[in-house]
């Protein structure tokens, strides 16, 4: 079996020493192993430690017990091969769209030290990326001149500009209306098909998880544990039509009943 890309081995996390002593963990005994290029979705009731999971996967938090390996390397601090996007687009209002997208290149090496010299090249790269998500013509607009959906597209571009090997999304489409959300599902689907990065999508939208992911993990309420792993064996490329098939609705229904069991217990 080839080496796993995201590899959580019995990971426990308590946020500080005091909580650790009292055995109060935010997440418990997380074991996950994904292949290179896999798209996984993590679903669960709110407050189940999904965001904690994100912090562990990016190295912003170190596990209290167990080990996290990403891309074959043990995680010892923030890992630069990831890009992140959140429910709020968090674009900087004083920067134009393209300058927002370029922000990571001003920070992460090796781009940082070459930024001044190769600025035109990077701007061209940002333009191309923005065009692939349908934002051509909006490069020089400010975030507040864009709709919510457009801001979120720009936010995803910012997460991808340094060509990370993994994209982490924390409920990225949660604040959008249903039609915009489905549009962005396809934007994400196409981006990933073109660039083949790994994705961890944290969401509470089961249709979203089932439509986009290869594997869905269901987390229990706090303290978060992985209670179910479900392979999504729908053929790719997927189209929104698939969400109206019985195979798809049965799948979502099955996931829904799992969450229902957790909420009752």
């Amino acid at each position, binding site marked *: 079996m080839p080496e796993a890309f995201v590899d959580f081995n019995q990971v426990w996390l308590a946020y500080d020493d005091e909580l650790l002593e009292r055995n109060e963990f935010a997440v418990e005994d997380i074991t996950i192993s994904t292949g290179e290029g896999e798209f996984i979705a993590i679903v669960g009731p709110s407050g189940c430690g999904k965001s904690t999971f994100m*912090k562990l996967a*990016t*190295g*912003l938090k170190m596990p209290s017990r167990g080990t996290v390996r990403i891309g074959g390397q043990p995680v010892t601090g*923030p*890992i*630069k091969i*990831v890009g*992140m*996007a*959140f429910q*709020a687009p*968090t674009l*900087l*209002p*004083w920067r134009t769209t393209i300058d927002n997208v370029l*922000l*990571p290149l*001003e*920070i*992460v*090496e090796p781009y940082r030290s070459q930024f001044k010299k190769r600025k035109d090249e990077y701007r061209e790269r940002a333009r191309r990326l923005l065009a692939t998500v349908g934002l051509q013509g909006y490069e020089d607009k*400010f975030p*507040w001149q864009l709709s919510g959906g457009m801001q979120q597209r720009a936010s995803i571009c*910012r*997460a991808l500009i*340094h060509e990370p090997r993994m994209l982490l999304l*924390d409920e990225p489409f949660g604040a959008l209306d249903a039609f915009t959300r489905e549009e962005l599902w396809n934007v994400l689907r196409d981006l990933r098909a073109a660039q083949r990065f790994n994705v961890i999508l944290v969401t509470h939208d089961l249709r979203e998880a089932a439509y986009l992911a290869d594997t869905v993990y269901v987390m229990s309420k706090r303290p978060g544990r992985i209670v179910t792993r479900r392979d999504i064996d729908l053929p790719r490329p997927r189209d929104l039509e698939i969400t109206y098939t019985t195979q798809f609705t049965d799948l979502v229904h099955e996931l829904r009943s799992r969450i229902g069991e957790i909420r009752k217990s």
Partner: protein
Amino acid sequence: MARHKKLETYAPWALLVASILLWQLACWAFDVSEFVFPSPLQILGSLIEFAVPIAEHAWRTFWTTMVGFAISIVVGVVLGFVIGSSRLAYAAMYPLMTAFNALPKAAFVPILVVWFGIGVGPAILTAFLISFFPIMVNIATGLATLEPELEDVLRVLGARRLDVLLKVGLPRSMPYFFASLKVAITLAFVGTTVSEMNASNEGIGYLLISAGSAMKMPLAFAGLVVIAAMAMAMYELFSWIERHTTAWAHRGQT
């Protein structure tokens, strides 16, 4: 809409003119003595008659205030940066700063006189002491209220604390900073004037005291008019700079 906008622009001027007219009429109608309450025309007369000495005193007050204000900006920004960028510094310094701010700054003047003598020193320092606080607080607030998600995005990329502060924190606190300058400049004029009233032989503050003690009420009022005009002019200047440097924070109002 355009007409409404125009009306808004001229409204303060119209109100000013109306109040002056009413004031003048009241002085005429009730035959108010100029030793009690001078009329606008008498004040204008004083302004013209003593134009040269008033201008000299005004210039003195103006540059004194500007020097004090410049020190305020430097100290306020540095302290604000320190307080806003570290939680420990915030916890340690904020209560002390608040206590300091609660002190009446006029009470410092006698002490400053002992240290620096009569004249420009106490005035500059009083202007500084009274006006740095809002600048400091606003810079600190701008820095301390970063979205944690955005900080995560940058930290994952290997951003140092200083990167986050320079790329995000400082630009973000600019609207707060310029808003605080508008408040601080008017306070600085208060500080200078208070100090000059107590411990100076020059400046509008001194002019107010000496005119008052000589019962030259129109001249004292002329001094007030000049200081109000200077403070307003500086306020407008900083609000113009604010609008033109941080337009992104004022969308929808233009």
